[in-house]
């Protein structure tokens, strides 16, 4: 029975036959089909199951508003749940499976819910499952969760790629039906930059689904001809298969282009979908209208669909959903379906609500068999396999309410039209604006384009419009068939029925928002496109209010659901964020370094030597070798900011808490930077290279933030200061050379005299290395005699190799961030874990650095009462009383014998390392009144460890190593 329901006509390519599978069964369709049209052509009406009652369902629509015909498209890692068969473009080899049904679509065990429907009313779960208390999570909820959901993800990584892009235009036109095409032609001919986007794979909108003529030719042919003319215009960009998902501020629109979804697999290098950010100066919404159903008993059976959809399947796809058809309508558009189908030779019975006729029931569990009609008291049942329902058309106002503008009710067409206060620059045309005739679409499309361009100073002219029908909307609202005992569906996917809305009204959930939230009306994947207005109208009927009195319903982005992969684009996996590599990266790789992420940087964490099996071996070796002789470390990642200008010194005095004006040329100084709230923000050394020239270093983490704050200080706080700033972080490769033999090593490399006399402690200045310009700073983070040497970045790799070569006689080593951390803790220097944004200079034992003699950022508020508390946190050193005692960063201090309760909390260990120098774990910590507790014993307790880690510790000065700093000056 191949394509038994395929009839003549339609815009499919019958010369291209495509094979596909649904639930394992093979079928054939044609190019131009959707999965739904092809299945219907093959006589398949049953395509899905509803969410709550697992009712058998077929397509309700022929478009993106589809609530029922949802399938798993494709298989394996490409399985795509909840895919609307009505918009899935058919391709050869397409494979789809039904979802939310077990064991099979025809026999679904959970259809038991349908039998229990009288118990499963709206919100029933709020009223039960409470006793006994424990049972909710142990029993009830697990069952509910298991049953919930529609389609399934495979848990495999999505194998396809996605990307993003940016487009700019004068006029964005959303929708390529008669209104959109008319607008695009008008704007295109006027020379404006135009983007015409349409969610369908073929442009033309409803004209593709109608037999109406435009300009004396078939509407579909007219549309095709206009598309050709537009395609020839260089200033017009046609974007089929592209959905405008949302209107954002100031004319920015999000759009999803389905680049490869019409193929089995994307072509090599191509993405599956692209997220476009469209920057438009003006936009016209020509998104058409969506037909709405009428609620009557069992109006959800496969074969019952919107009348316009029935017509679309016949006219566009050459598919007769059924041979014996009934049409239930409250308006003339329904009659159009009847006449079109009759013209296709189908037998059609019209039930016109305006003549007192109505459908009161249907039969056919897996597919429509008959409808029961009541006309003026007389009840009859007629056999039929398709029923078209038309309750009128709702303009697709969705995008106009993305800025929370409320649509307004227009009695003449019994529907909501866009409100006045929609997104600035967006106007609506055609059916989306309530102009439901073809002529109305052409005319308003042209008019809105002319008006939009006039705003931009672009003159567009009104060409004569082609001849087209201009029938008035003849509708007398009918929302539901009263008096039924059974269920009449309003939101088909979520199984919200007339009874549910009645119950919500009975329990006083009468505001629209309460109605939606209590019954879940409009919360399904179709976002209420077919059900919301109907539900609202039903509530109005029940409360005896008008629809405007009852409220409106607004829509939020996205217009249709968007794949997460598309929204992420290329930012996933290793490409989530870019990598920043240090100048010594290549060399370190050769050494087999272990790298660690530090922000976006990759830094050497340690560099194992042959035979080292545990990271501690490498780190201990690096520390001991440095302290014994000399070690080298790439410190390029530290922020460097070049500060020049005649007010540079005064500027530094403002941004640093300590004094800088007195810093001499050729010297550097440790600087402490506060936030205005008095907390320590950042630290680093700043060198004075010339009278009006400084180079500031920041922590790696804060480089960008400090630069931002310096710009703020110079532009906003002290705008007349003569200060210029530029980052030089990446311009210079900088290495720390530390250890007793640091000078000896550098003397072999640096061209100048760097003896202690020529280059004293905290000296800074220009040097050359083999004639290459460089900089030298005599500063130390490790506590050793140490320098930082810098050369232009391109020479960084060569410099590290040269340093290692020159250092061979001293057994020089390169150390990574772990050893760096060990040595700074041994010296009691604060770093990231102490600079936590919650700590003041006083907490760090640096209170005296905050000068009161000058105004600097944070100085005043650092003096607030609680921040000066003598019993506040102070930075201390921590040593286990027994050498083998283990410490953990994050452990809290408790007094000996104190119970582990918050009242006894003394503070915590901020950083912990193993000190090969001291032969035990050591740590820094913030301890309440810590400066008064030096020499005492406490417990460092980690309650997260299993078993709990309790270590008896001695509170000591944070300067574990060379407290007098003799080695620095050595």
């Amino acid at each position: 029975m191949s394509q038994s329901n395929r009839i003549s006509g339609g815009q499919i390519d019958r010369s291209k036959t495509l094979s596909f599978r649904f639930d394992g069964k093979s079928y054939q369709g044609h190019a131009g089909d959707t999965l739904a049209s092809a299945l219907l052509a093959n006589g398949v009406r049953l395509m899905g199951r509803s969410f709550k009652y697992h009712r058998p369902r077929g397509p309700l629509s022929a478009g993106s508003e589809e609530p029922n015909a949802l399938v798993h498209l494709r298989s394996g890692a490409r399985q795509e749940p909840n895919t609307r068969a009505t918009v899935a473009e058919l391709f050869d080899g397409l494979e789809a499976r039904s979802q939310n049904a077990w064991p099979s679509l025809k026999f679904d065990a959970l259809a038991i819910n349908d039998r229990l429907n009288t118990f499963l009313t709206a919100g029933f779960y709020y009223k039960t499952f409470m006793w006994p208390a424990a049972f909710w999570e142990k029993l009830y909820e697990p069952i509910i969760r298991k049953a919930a959901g529609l389609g399934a993800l495979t848990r495999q990584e999505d194998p396809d790629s996605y990307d993003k892009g940016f487009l700019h235009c004068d006029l964005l036109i959303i929708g390529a039906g008669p209104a959109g095409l008319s607008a695009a032609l008008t704007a295109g001919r006027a020379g404006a930059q135009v983007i015409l986007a349409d969610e369908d794979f073929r442009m033309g909108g409803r004209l593709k689904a109608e037999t109406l003529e435009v300009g004396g030719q078939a509407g579909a042919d007219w549309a095709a001809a206009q598309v050709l003319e537009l395609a020839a215009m260089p200033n017009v960009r046609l974007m089929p298969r592209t959905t405008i998902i949302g209107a954002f501020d100031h004319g920015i629109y999000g759009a999803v282009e389905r680049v490869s979804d019409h193929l089995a697999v994307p072509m090599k290098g191509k993405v599956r979908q692209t997220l476009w950010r469209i920057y438009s100066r003006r936009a016209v919404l020509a998104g058409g209208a969506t037909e709405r159903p009428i609620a009557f008993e069992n109006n959800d059976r496969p074969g019952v669909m919107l009348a316009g959809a029935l017509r679309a399947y016949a006219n566009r796809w050459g598919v007769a959903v059924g041979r014996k058809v009934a049409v239930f309508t409250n308006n003339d558009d329904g009659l159009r379906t009847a006449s079109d189908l009759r013209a296709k030779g189908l037998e059609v019975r019209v039930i016109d609500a305006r003549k007192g006729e109505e459908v009161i029931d249907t039969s056919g569990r897996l597919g429509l068999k008959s409808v029961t009609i009541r006309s003026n008291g007389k009840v009859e049942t007629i056999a039929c396999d398709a029923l078209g329902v038309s309750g009128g058309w709702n303009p697709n106002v969705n995008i106009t309410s993305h800025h929370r503008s409320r649509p307004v009710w227009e009695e003449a067409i019994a529907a909501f039209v866009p409100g006045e206060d929609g997104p600035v620059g967006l106007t609506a045309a055609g059916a989306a604006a309530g102009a439901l005739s073809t002529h109305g679409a052409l005319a308003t499309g042209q008019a809105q384009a002319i008006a939009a361009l006039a705003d931009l100073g672009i003159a567009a002219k009104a060409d004569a419009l082609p001849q087209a029908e201009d029938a008035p909307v003849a509708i007398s609202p009918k929302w539901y068939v009263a008096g039924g005992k059974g269920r009449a569906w309003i939101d088909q996917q979520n199984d919200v029925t007339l009874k549910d809305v009645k119950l919500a009204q009975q329990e006083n959930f009468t505001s629209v928002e309460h109605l939606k939230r209590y019954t879940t009306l409009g919360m399904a994947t179709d976002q209420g496109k077919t059900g919301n207005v109907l539900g609202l109208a039903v509530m109005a009927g029940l409360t005896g209010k008008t629809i405007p009195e009852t409220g409106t319903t607004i829509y939020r982005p996205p217009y249709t659901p968007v794949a997460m992969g598309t929204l992420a684009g290329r930012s996933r996996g290793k490409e989530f964020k870019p990598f920043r590599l240090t100048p010594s990266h290549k060399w370190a790789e050769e050494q087999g370094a272990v790298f660690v992420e530090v922000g976006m940087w990759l830094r050497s964490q340690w560099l194992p030597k042959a035979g080292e099996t545990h990271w501690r071996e490498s780190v201990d070796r690096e520390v001991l070798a440095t302290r014994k002789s000399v070690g080298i470390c790439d410190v390029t990642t530290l922020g460097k900011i070049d500060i020049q200008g005649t007010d540079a010194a005064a500027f530094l005095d403002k941004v640093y808490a300590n004094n800088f004006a007195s810093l001499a040329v050729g010297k550097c100084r440790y600087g402490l930077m506060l936030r205005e709230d008095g907390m320590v923000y950042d630290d680093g050394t700043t060198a004075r290279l010339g009278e009006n020239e400084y180079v500031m270093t920041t922590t790696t983490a804060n480089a960008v933030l400090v630069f931002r704050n310096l710009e703020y200080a110079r532009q906003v706080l002290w705008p007349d200061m003569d200060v210029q700033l530029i980052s030089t972080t990446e311009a210079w490769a900088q290495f720390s050379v530390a250890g007793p033999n640091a000078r000896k090593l550098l003397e072999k490399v640096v061209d100048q005299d760097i003896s202690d006399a020529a280059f004293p402690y905290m000296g800074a200045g220009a040097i050359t290395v083999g004639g290459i310009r460089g900089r030298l700073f005599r500063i130390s983070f490790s506590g050793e005699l140490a320098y930082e040497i810098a050369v232009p970045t391109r020479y960084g790799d060569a410099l590290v190799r040269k340093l290692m070569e020159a250092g061979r006689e001293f057994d020089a080593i390169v150390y990574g961030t772990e050893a760096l951390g060990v040595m700074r803790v041994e010296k009691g220097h604060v770093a990231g874990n102490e600079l936590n944004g919650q700590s003041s200079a006083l907490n760090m034992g640096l209170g005296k650095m905050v000068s009161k003699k000058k105004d600097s950022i944070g100085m005043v508020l650092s003096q607030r009462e609680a921040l000066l508390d003598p019993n506040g946190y102070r930075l201390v050193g921590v040593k286990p009383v027994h050498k083998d005692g283990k410490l953990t960063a994050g452990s809290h201090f408790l007094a000996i014998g104190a119970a582990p309760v918050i009242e006894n909390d003394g503070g915590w260990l901020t950083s912990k390392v193993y000190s090969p120098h001291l032969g035990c774990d050591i740590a820094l910590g913030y301890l309440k009144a810590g400066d008064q507790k030096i020499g005492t014993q406490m417990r460092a307790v980690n309650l997260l460890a299993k078993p709990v880690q309790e270590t008896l510790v001695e509170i000591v000065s944070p300067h574990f190593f060379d407290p007098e700093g003799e080695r620095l000056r050595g």
Partner: protein
Amino acid sequence: MIINHPILGPRDSQEFVYLGAAEMMNRPDGMSAGIEEFHEWLYHRDNPAGEHRELWYHEQGDRSWLVVTRNTLTHEISRVELARDVAKAMGRSK
């Protein structure tokens, strides 16, 4: 959002970093003002529903700090100025 940069014209707000209310430009002088004055300046905001003058930094642009007048109900931007000009007009100098 689109910020109409006084020098560069319309730029996407994604290029900017937001700081907060332009009230924060009135930083007291630490040599004359005390804790109360600094506290009022740093912590309290008008936070209006309507026109709001606020500071944006063109970090992925020309590094200008801007004062943007934007409606917090509609996001409509009615005015954009260079913060340095505003600061100088307020009498800030060195």
